[in-house]
């Protein structure tokens, strides 16, 4: 027993001398042996890869437009190399790009949503979320606004009873129990004025129509055969007001709006035609082409107006096109060309302020706009110089008042004109002295 104890004590002392490292080495050997058996020995002395590796990775992701992943890797690179001044700059620039792209796609998404182009809106909101995964508004559109609601909100008016609301909404006062049920109202309890009630939207088979939809549809179809599209549209609108999901009425509305739009196009009333085509669901065959044709006709009209230098009319026509289709490149080109041409004419007439006002309405990204702005400033400067020299001539002819007037004109056009400023001061003091001599 004593001998065994001595050996044990010796082992403990040995542990004291070799420390944990010894134990670790001992156990590590076992682990290595197991790893060797499995032929996957871990390389020794492995270190974290340098910041440049992660930075390179980030740049690769950035190139592929995977900006969030690029940002992750850039942040890693930044942590690994805290002394770098470039990485924080790159992070800030990447964040700003992400922010810009998310904002741009979200705005386009809202525009598409408002134009009821829901598929396009969905794509834009998804793109927004891809760039900015925490974008709450884009998420709200995708998760809520883009889905049809199963109820409508109704604000209770003074003296409204549930029976009144039920009659108004379901064309049936006896469905008041339904409103009470979904709004946690007790039997006989009337809603308080101003309260917002949730009214489930019932399918047509559950509501009693005040109009006979079947008969109305027959009437509309007969009108359609006679090509009386305005009448078809009226009836379809009435049915849809009652039953917004009625497929036949919605088809009739599409056909009639499309045909009315075509007629307006034939009469060359393109803006009215486009208005009408916009009421047709975008999936309707031929409607997108019809809108495009009407837009092209309007563009042609605008080009002719530009040739006749009718700038205000060009602006009005192209603005309308851009209202329908904000990204229409031809309309954008045309309106900016018109702005530049009008500004040039105003410059020739030396109306520089008005020219600059016109250019303020243009897109500064356009090369022609940039150039025209620069030309206006150059012309202004040149004209200032003309006034300055006129002033000098007057001065030499001892016409001090006239000289001051010319230099003041020069200064109005170019407030930085040092000589004009100096000469005005000199001329004024000379005038004062002359006054005294007199």
């Amino acid at each position, binding site marked *: 027993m004593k001998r065994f104890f001595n050996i044990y004590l010796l082992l403990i002392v040995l*542990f004291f001398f070799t420390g944990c490292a010894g*134990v670790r080495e001992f156990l*590590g050997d076992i682990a290595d042996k197991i790893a060797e058996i499995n032929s996957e020995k871990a390389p020794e002395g*492995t270190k974290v*890869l340098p910041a440049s590796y992660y930075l390179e990775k980030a740049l690769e992701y950035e190139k592929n437009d995977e900006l969030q992943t690029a940002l*992750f890797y850039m942040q890693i690179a930044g942590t690994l190399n805290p002394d770098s001044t470039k990485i924080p700059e790159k992070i800030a620039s990447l964040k700003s790009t992400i922010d810009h792209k998310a904002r741009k796609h979200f705005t386009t998404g809202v525009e598409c949503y408002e134009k009821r182009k829901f598929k396009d809106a969905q*794509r834009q909101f998804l793109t927004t979320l891809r760039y900015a995964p925490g974008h709450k508004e884009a998420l709200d559109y995708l998760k809520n606004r883009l889905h049809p609601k*199963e*109820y409508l909100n109704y604000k209770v008016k003074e003296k409204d009873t549930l029976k009144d609301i039920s009659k108004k909404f379901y064309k049936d006062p006896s469905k008041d129990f339904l409103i009470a049920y979904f709004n946690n109202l007790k039997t006989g309890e009337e809603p308080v004025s101003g309260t917002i009630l949730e009214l489930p939207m019932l399918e047509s088979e*559950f509501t009693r129509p005040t109009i006979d939809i079947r008969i109305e549809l027959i009437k509309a179809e007969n009108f359609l055969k006679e090509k009386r599209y305005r009448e078809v549209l009226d009836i379809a609108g009435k049915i849809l007001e009652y039953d917004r999901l009625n497929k036949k009425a919605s088809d009739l509305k599409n056909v009639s709006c499309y045909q009315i739009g075509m007629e307006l196009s034939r009469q060359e009333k393109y803006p009215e035609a486009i208005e009408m085509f916009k009421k047709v669901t975008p999936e309707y065959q031929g409607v997108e082409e019809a809108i495009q044709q009407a837009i092209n006709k309007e563009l042609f009209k605008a080009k002719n107006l530009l040739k006749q230098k009718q700038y205000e009319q060009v602006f009005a026509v192209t603005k309308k096109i851009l209202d329908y289709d904000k990204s229409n490149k031809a309309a954008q080109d045309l309106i900016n060309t018109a702005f530049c041409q009008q500004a040039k004419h105003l410059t020739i007439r030396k109306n520089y302020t008005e020219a600059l006002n016109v250019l303020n309405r243009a897109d500064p990204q356009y090369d022609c706009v940039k150039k025209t702005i620069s030309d206006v400033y150059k012309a202004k400067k040149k004209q200032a110089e003309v006034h300055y020299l006129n002033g000098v001539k007057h001065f030499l002819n001892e016409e001090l008042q006239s000289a001051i007037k010319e230099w003041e004109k020069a200064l109005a056009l170019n407030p930085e004109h040092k000589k004009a400023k100096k000469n005005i001061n000199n001329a004024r003091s000379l005038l004062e002295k002359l006054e005294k001599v007199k």
Partner: protein
Amino acid sequence: MQRSANRMKTISGLVFLLSLLLLAACATSIRSQHKISEIRINDDFIIVTATAKDTLSSLAAEYLNDPSKGWLIAEFNHIKNLTPGQELCIPLFPFNKGGLKSGGFQTVPVLAYYSFSKNKPSKIAITQDDFKAQMKYLKENGYHVITLDQLLGFLDYQEQIPEKSVAITFDDGWISVYDIAFPILKEYGFPATIFIYTDFIGGGKAMSWKQIKELSEAGFDIQCQTKTHRNLTVLKKKESFKEYFKSLEMEISYPKKLIKKKLNKECKFLAYPYGIANNLVIAMLKKHGYRAAFTVDNKSNPFFIDKYKINRSAIYGKYDIEKFKNKLSVFQNMELK
């Protein structure tokens, strides 16, 4: 003599304690050995170098407190397996909740099965061998079978799920689910949900409550498919609107209470009988606290699907494996730039 024996006991006790302390200290030091190169980035990432002893699952257990989340590390690093010495970024948060990529978005197929047969297929009954082959296909091709709770986390834009996720559901509560499907799912370790219509339970070809309880205790999710399996969207002959409304309320509220009573489990999902619903049904589901509901529209689900109109792909009896594969769409192409 007695005194020296006591002293000996005390010394040996002390030495034993000391040695225990030393060994404990050494053990801790060994555990943290592979963390030598561990770097934490803003509480968002950890960079580690994998050792020969690491697996995706062990790293997920250590850093994400969930061994089943190895896929998250694999997907972030675009790898399938670990190589010793490989440096890895472990994301500590769901880095892509909606599964959005520049070329499109993730979709999740939800499979809807009905009944099974040993070897005779019918329209709604799948043979044991076909079901086995389908589950084998999922396992061997890297699909992750997720629960409906995980699916809900994805649809709520709260949780990230594996890129190749699929959910499995059964309708009605046929006995063959218990006899044939259950053992196969158990073998593959796949979770599943059974939507029962409670009037069917205990009937001739249906499971009993005892069997359902057994499945529930084994980890299977038991949810609701109404009381009588009536079509929720049409009035019966001579049924008034008020009677229809009362019937809807019963179909939706009764099974929820019964499942709670029988299994002590919360019922939060509903599969529409015949896969169809209307606005009134959806409004009522929301009022009764259901979190989501399922149709049988043959499509996969992106995160932004209406949660009360979740698509399911019905798997019928005479499907070959090719037809089955067609139901497993996990990505929808769409340029998101």
